[in-house]
């Protein structure tokens, strides 16, 4: 970037980020905010594990424990894993397809601020009389009858951040369809871009179900509707269906991008083209498709009857096939390669056995009759942590180590990276492997205490010790990030011998990404140029003016408006002053929308002369 930006004061930088519509900066914002929420969720996890270190412990009360588990799950899924992935996608995906920008820069920024205010909303509840306590799944009627306002914060917080995610999804879809560089056909897109594309479709079709579910919950709790009120003919199971119609695709929304990250990493550090690229793309699409057909496997014990249980069991097992295809393709990518093991690759390598175990238990819980025993026990807790930590968190950390130089311009410290991996990896298996057995030995999940003399002491103790290892690993990573920001080694454009387009431009990239759009000649375009060409991308266009969008403060204000209005919704029944918040907030939110609609915003152009100067 030009020298002018480096001399900015703090206020100027803050204003820059509050108004930015640059996908790379929004990516960073997602990473910062997601990282913060990840630490918060981790803290909640540690409190849970400390409470369960011994039988009948009274470290925290039952009520507070329920708030902890609810907030841990909600935070990790919606406020940590999702935004961290969205951050990586924002920062990297447009570079991978050779785009200068995303399709809707304004919407992109709005999506981020909606997510952030939603996350803040959820966590404000800690200070206003108690966090949500009905579990991250918020099953009615527990959620509709939960006293206090905790669950109300859950509803409004997720509604805000869910809307933000939906905007992000639509933005990515249009970006990938309309803004690929010349020659970047669909079947030449890197796997990370492919998975971004597929999960954006999933977001598009899954999140509206959550929106509806949250509205129903909101109407029941705040406006006296009777969707889940059995006395007035309501039905509590509807929530479970709607929640899992959203919730199961959500699992794939999280894990597929991680698959994409691993695919890119395996290929780069094996110095080999991804084995079975076409099959990998096909498997991704198939997993996404099947992901919509299996939601009721979360409900085997609800009493849907043997026909429904059998159908959903078989549909679920079917997902194991494309997932297996992926695992073997990764293995065959390694096979015959020239494998470099560094901290990014370590996470990818650690993922294979871990995720295979998670997939195995996935098939096991898909067998409905076996699930009658596993369901809602620590076996399931172990299973989904193997999938979500072993898949998603490993993926995010792998992606961070891999793309850190591209995003921040500096390379993470290798030694600390390895220390993080080994402590976190060992700690993870220590924490969660034993939980499979705890579940089968009769420990249901979401238990505030387990009783003495039930044979559950040792397992829980080991599990808690493992959690401390994981916490240590995360702290080392944090130190690494800070150390790198201050003293880290400056990154060249292509530190790893990369194969895809993001490595063809400077680290960090200039704000217009590509001075001239690159001409793509095949899969792994940069690799092709290294082997067969000049070693750098051939421009697809002459140097010319570059059109850029203007920054805008409106997304922040709009999100703030809806944030304020949410308090109005929560308290309107009990406090008259809440109406001020409700109408005031809505006025700010909708008013901003109107301003955006009425005010012309044509963006600006970087002239050819300016671009020529930048080169020197």
């Amino acid at each position: 970037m030009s020298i002018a930006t480096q001399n900015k004061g703090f206020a100027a930088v803050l204003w820059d980020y509050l108004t930015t519509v640059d996908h790379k900066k929004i990516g960073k914002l997602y990473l910062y905010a997601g990282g913060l929420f990840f630490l918060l969720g981790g803290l909640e996890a540690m409190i849970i594990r400390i409470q369960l270190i011994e039988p009948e412990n009274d470290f925290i009360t039952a009520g507070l424990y329920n708030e902890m588990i609810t907030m841990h799950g909600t935070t990790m899924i919606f406020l940590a894993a999702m935004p961290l992935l969205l951050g990586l996608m924002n920062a990297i995906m447009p570079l991978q397809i050779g785009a200068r920008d995303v399709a809707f820069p304004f919407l992109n920024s709005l999506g981020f601020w909606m997510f952030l205010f939603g996350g803040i909303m959820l966590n404000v509840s800690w200070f206003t009389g108690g966090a949500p306590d009905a579990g991250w799944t918020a099953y009615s009627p527990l959620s509709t009858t939960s006293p206090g306002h905790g669950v109300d914060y859950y509803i409004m917080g997720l509604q805000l951040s869910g809307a933000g995610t939906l905007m992000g999804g639509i933005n990515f879809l249009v970006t990938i369809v309309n803004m690929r560089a010349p020659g970047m056909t669909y079947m030449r897109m890197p796997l990370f871009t492919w998975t971004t594309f597929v999960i954006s479709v999933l977001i598009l079709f899954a999140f509206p179900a959550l929106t509806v579910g949250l509205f129903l919950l909101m109407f029941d709790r705040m406006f006296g509707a009777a969707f889940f009120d059995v006395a007035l003919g309501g039905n509590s199971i509807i929530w479970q269906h709607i929640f899992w119609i959203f919730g199961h695709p959500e699992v794939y929304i999280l894990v597929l991008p991680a698959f994409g990250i691993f695919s890119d990493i395996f290929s780069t550090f094996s110095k080999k083209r991804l084995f079975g690229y076409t099959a990998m793309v096909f498997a991704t699409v198939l997993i996404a498709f099947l992901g919509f057909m299996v939601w009721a496997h979360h409900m085997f014990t609800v009493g849907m009857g043997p026909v429904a249980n059998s159908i959903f069991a078989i549909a679920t097992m079917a997902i194991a096939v494309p997932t297996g295809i992926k695992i073997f393709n990764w293995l065959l990518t390694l096979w015959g390669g020239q494998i470099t093991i560094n901290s990014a690759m370590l996470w990818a390598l650690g993922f294979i056995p871990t995720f295979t175990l998670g997939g195995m238990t996935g098939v096991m819980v898909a067998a409905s009759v076996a699930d009658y025993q596993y369901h809602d026990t620590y076996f399931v807790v172990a299973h989904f942590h193997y999938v979500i930590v072993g898949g998603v968190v490993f993926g995010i950390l792998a992606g961070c180590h891999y793309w850190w130089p591209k995003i921040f311009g500096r390379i993470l410290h290798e030694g600390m990276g390895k220390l993080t991996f080994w402590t976190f990896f060992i700690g993870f298996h220590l924490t969660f492997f034993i939980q499979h057995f705890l579940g089968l030995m009769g420990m249901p999940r979401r238990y505030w205490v387990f009783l003495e003399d039930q044979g559950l002491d040792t397992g829980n103790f080991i599990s808690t010790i493992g959690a401390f290892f994981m916490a240590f690993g995360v702290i080392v990573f944090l130190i690494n990030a800070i150390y790198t920001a201050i003293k880290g080694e400056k990154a060249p454009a292509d530190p790893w011998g990369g194969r895809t387009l993001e490595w063809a431009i400077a680290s960090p990239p200039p704000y217009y990404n590509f001075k001239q759009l690159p001409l793509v000649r095949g899969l792994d375009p940069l690799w092709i140029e290294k082997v067969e060409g000049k070693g750098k991308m051939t421009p697809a266009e002459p140097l010319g003016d570059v059109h850029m969008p203007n920054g805008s403060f409106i997304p922040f204000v709009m999100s703030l408006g809806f944030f304020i209005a949410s308090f109005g919704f929560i308290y309107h029944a009990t406090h008259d002053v809440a109406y001020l918040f409700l109408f005031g907030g809505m006025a700010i939110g909708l008013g901003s929308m109107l301003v955006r609609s009425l005010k012309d915003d044509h963006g600006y152009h970087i002239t050819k002369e300016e671009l020529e100067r930048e080169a020197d």
Partner: protein
Amino acid sequence: MSHDHSLNPETMPHNPEKATLEGKNKFLGLWFFLGGETVLFASLFGTYLALKNSTAGGPSSEELFGLELVFIMTMLLLTSSLTSVYAMYHMKNNDFKKMQLWLGITGLLGLAFLSLEIYEFYHYIHEYGFTFRSSAFGSAFYTLVGFHGGHVLFGLCWLTAIMVRNAKRGLNLYNAPKFNTFSLYWHFIDVVWVFIFTVVYLMGKVG
């Protein structure tokens, strides 16, 4: 290369709404958005179907619904969809005045629809005591139909905003996509209403 020039060319292209990258993006983005909206309404329909017999002793759909009013509403909305097609036809021929005229008619039809819907709700509440809170059926009915009504209201506000904003400056490549996306959105609302008419009213009266 000035914007005025690029957005106000001497001769408008045949599809002004898709002549710029921004226009193409808006067009595709709205299609995706409508895909999401489909799931939203599908979830609401599912909920309604699950709860439509849960009247908790209150009036049932057979007792409540009168098909005459709903038929008029349906005709109003279907016609408004047609008039918005005329508006888009004139936009493609770069006839701004006629486009505005037909959009105005579209808006008035939408307004008439909305007024009848409000009357319908008022009628149910005051004649039958059938409210949002009286039963699970009530909650599901008002939520589904109300969500649709809310979409109509939003569409009317949107239409008013772009019509007023662009009244003086006419059509260009910057605002053509805006008119076009509105029209797509309006068709979608219409389609949803056809489903509501069938699933809620016809099936509620007969089935």
